[in-house]
């Protein structure tokens, strides 16, 4: 019996649970019966399970609380927010207004930055996926000299933090005439997304049965057809989690945009601009932050399964 089952508050065990079958033992063996837990032990179990519940509820509320505060604050006027705390709106809901959001829609700096974020995040994700998959397939299933060297190189590059490339890349982008613009931000994100993408997808592709590849090749399929019809469908879960991970990575990035994207700043940059140590533009940053969170949250709830996987895989990055 687990401590949970012995607690009266726990749901009854499912009907289909197999009944324990008594084993035949040779005559004369002492019958071993699990001793009934003492009253004290059962009390501890009940309290323990109750405590676990209370603990989880408290933690959950505590985790939700800060975001709730911001959500309420985003629905109050700047004057209200600087006069009283957001919780006063709970007893005086007449304070609530959509004015901040209406103003946000008219704020071209913010709407423009949201658009920029999309223009940066989507191509960065597409390029990492396509180029990563092509390279990873070559490393997994095409035989050529130098294959292992390239793979070890890709793995080694996952180590490099972005800071190490910032200064020389500024010179590279300046030479290319894109310093400060969206293509520079994309190029940088793609370069830093690729090592991990190649590493992850190559390992995933290797899980493909060799017979399947050989059979397709024997049927006269071109290598690209094998890649598109056999390898890609097989690697769908890995591609999904990689896409999600890469997209959110770029969507939430501040550092790269700060250095390379100042002419077309994304939303993180725009919000940061409005945040100051003491008197911030509360009426801009509160709804702005919530709007910037909307996309990750929608993705999170839609693709929760991929999301968990991407986190497990992404533990490396």
């Amino acid at each position, binding site marked *: 019996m687990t*401590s949970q089952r012995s607690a009266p508050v726990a*749901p009854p065990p499912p009907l289909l649970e197999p009944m324990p079958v008594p084993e035949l033992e040779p005559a004369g063996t002492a019958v071993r019966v699990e001793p009934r837990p003492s009253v004290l032990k059962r009390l501890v179990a009940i309290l323990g399970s109750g405590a676990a519940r209370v*603990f989880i*509820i408290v*933690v959950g509320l505590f*985790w939700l609380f*800060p975001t709730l*505060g*911001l959500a309420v604050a985003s629905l109050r006027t700047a004057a209200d927010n600087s006069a*009283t*705390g*957001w919780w006063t709106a709970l007893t005086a809901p007449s304070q609530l207004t959509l004015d901040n959001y209406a103003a946000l829609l008219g704020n071209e700096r913010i709407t423009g930055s949201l658009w920029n974020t999309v*223009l940066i995040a*989507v*191509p960065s994700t*597409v*390029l990492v996926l396509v180029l*990563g998959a092509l390279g990873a397939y*070559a490393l997994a299933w*095409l035989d*050529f000299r130098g*294959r292992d060297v*390239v793979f070890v190189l*890709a793995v080694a*590059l996952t180590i*490099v*933090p972005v*800071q*190490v*490339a*910032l*200064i020389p*890349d500024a010179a*590279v982008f300046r030479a290319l005439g894109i310093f400060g613009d969206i293509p520079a931000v994309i*190029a940088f994100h793609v*370069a830093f997304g690729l*090592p991990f993408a*190649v590493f992850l997808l190559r390992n995933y592709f290797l899980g493909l049965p060799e017979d399947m590849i050989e059979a397709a090749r024997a049927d006269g399929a*071109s290598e690209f057809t094998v890649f598109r019809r056999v390898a890609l469908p097989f690697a769908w879960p890995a591609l999904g989690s990689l896409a999600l991970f890469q997209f*959110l990575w770029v969507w*939430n990035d*501040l*550092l790269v945009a700060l*250095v390379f994207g100042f002419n077309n700043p994304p939303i*993180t940059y725009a*919000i*940061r601009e409005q*945040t100051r*140590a003491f008197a*911030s533009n509360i009426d801009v940053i509160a709804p702005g*932050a919530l709007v910037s*969170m909307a996309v*990750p*949250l929608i993705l*999170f709830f839609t693709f*929760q399964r991929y999301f*968990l996987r991407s*986190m497990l895989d992404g*533990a*490396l990055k």
Partner: protein
Amino acid sequence: MDSQLLTALEVVVGVPAVLVGYIWLTERIVTLVPPKWQKRVRPWFWLGPALGFLGFFLIYPTIGTIIRSFQSRNVRNPEWVGLANYKWFFTNDAAVQALLNNALWLVMLTVFTVGLGLVIAVLVDRVRYEAWAKSIIFLPLAISMVAAGVIWKFMYDFRPPGQPQTGTLNAAIGAVGINPVAWLQSPTFGVSTFALIAIMIWMWTGFAMVIISAAVKGIDPELLEAARLDGAGEWQIFRKVTFPLLGPTLAVVSTTMVITSLKTFDIVYTLTNGNYDTEVIANLMIKQMSFNDFGRASAVAVVLLLAIIPVMAFNIRQFRAQESIR
């Protein structure tokens, strides 16, 4: 707005067109090559774009930064200065404080996220609305650190004593008669850094919880049952069976948190920019860069790289070990 429209067009039409065009063209070229050569040529066509991005924007700059870290700040004609930039780093007050703060980040963030994550992962198993609890705790990880910074700015808001407090925390401690604390502008060493670390704990506990929880579920229930039959209490089972089995997972999560704390930047930059004794290495690097001292900025970046390499190498080994089991 026009440049945005142009970029949008480039993105929607340009990127896919270039990708498809590249694949089509290279496949054509491969078929024109004598069959003997096809096998040798194709892999490099497929790897080409990825290697190009890596070479231009990652490998070349990394080497450049390492070289630049031995040169002076002069932008046009940098001179060789040997180890002067590194000497500056390890003797300058702000940098030493950054190192100290990063050490603080490393210990506090790792201990709290892994500890809390472990406790929640073990306990959440016993709660009916498990999925909900997990989602709520995990959510902060999906949002940007800038958004998290804004959220917590409202928690930490400070008004001088006597004025109505608008920050949640100060109002809460005010309700029990404690004077308000300037969480993010504290003159006491450590307070503001802890306030920043708390935000990251809020963000990353869910990550530790999810990964540890997956490992907890992977433990063979018969093992636990056997321990129970032997008369072990729940605490003993956790200490002697569950915990040792979680060892490799805890190692991966811990190293990830160590790397996260070494790289910490967004939160610090957004909320304090290193003021009030909250400087960290990554922020220092950006600061030196904005001062146009590329020599020192490069040295700081190399220090960061050197700090991360051993942890990352360990992490990759663990990851590969896990891959081979899977």
